């Protein structure tokens, strides 16, 4: 089960390749398909490896891609935070 998921706004992409190069778990590749401006947007080749770190979203100069943590990871993190807060009291 993947810890996160990548979402891509294909029409905003200008195919600079930053997300493909700097994804720490190598989830992405530039696809052969074109968007309406003639660029090759990235596509997900290893969805199971995504950690949802959103580094692709930090690098994307065109605001066209972002990562999100999956619901299970989010709830696990929230539980950890409440435990930590409880421990401090």
């Amino acid at each position, binding site marked *: 089960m993947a810890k996160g*998921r990548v*979402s*891509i*706004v294909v*029409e*905003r992409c*200008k*195919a*600079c*390749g*930053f997300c493909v*190069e*700097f994804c720490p778990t190598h989830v992405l590749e530039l696809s052969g398909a074109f968007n309406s*401006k003639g*660029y090759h947007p990235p596509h997900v080749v290893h969805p199971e490896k995504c950690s949802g770190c*959103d*580094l692709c*979203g*930090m*690098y*994307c*100069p*065109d*605001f066209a891609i*972002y990562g*999100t943590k999956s619901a299970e990871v989010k709830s696990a993190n929230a539980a950890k935070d409440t435990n930590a807060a409880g421990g401090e009291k």
Partner: protein
Amino acid sequence: MLNVIDDTVNPVEPFLRTDRMPHIWCPGCGIGTTVNSFSRALIDSKIDLDSLALVSGIGCAGRVAGYVRLDSFHTTHGRAIPFATGLKLANPKLNVVVYSGDGDLSAIGGNHLIHAARRNIDLKVICVNNLIYAMTGGQTAPTTPGHATTSTNPYGTFEPAFNLPHLVEAAGAVYVARWTTFHVRQLARSISEAFQKKGFSFIEVISPCPTLYQRRNKMGDGLDTMKYYKEKSKVKNGAPTSEVGLTLTGEIAVGKFVDRDRPDYQSMMRAQYVESLGDRYVEMADLEEPEMECVCG
């Protein structure tokens, strides 16, 4: 309207005027990446967006003011800092950010830059440095390193370049940092830190210009430049700024160079007037919210 895919939203989306997307920046340009880091810094520092004003000058990086969903000014060339100074003096509670390029801030606006640093006006200056005048066609800028080829120096630049961290430190800035567009998380943290400082903060971001600078100097595209930044940049926190000048292909010193405290312009003004005028000095009352009446519809 937010651009929502499935049930998730890009974290930068609430800070953008999405009706103006896609933006005009070239493929591989790093300015959009700096906007990502800026938006993460706004989220992390939990700043009230109603108390924030963003001021830009002219140039590629000057377009940021038109793309962010914040109170923003797109001012005349080189005059971003004077506009921001006026905003800050008229309403001292505002957090004023100047977001502009190296040509705007250090060339035509160079005088304003050093004097704002000297006065220590409480501004956060983010300088996107692409080492060239990009929007006007790739002419030599004061930051262009030696031997670089530009449209006005086709046989190589020979002028010595400005070392911006050294310049603003000497002029009196309280916070000076430099990162590249490769260091997205470090840059976001640096911008958050600058929001905590009182005084003139200067953050230089080295950014690729694949269309003009990298192409003319045969340095590849935006991605090649990001790899070059990854390979050649070296974190040197606290390094003497006199030693962090940039060269064409050499090492890029990055990090937080200066973090010090000096009284800012408004506290110095208050201290001086209280000393010389005593009780006769009356501080400006808080600005009241203007009454807004909607006459539309």
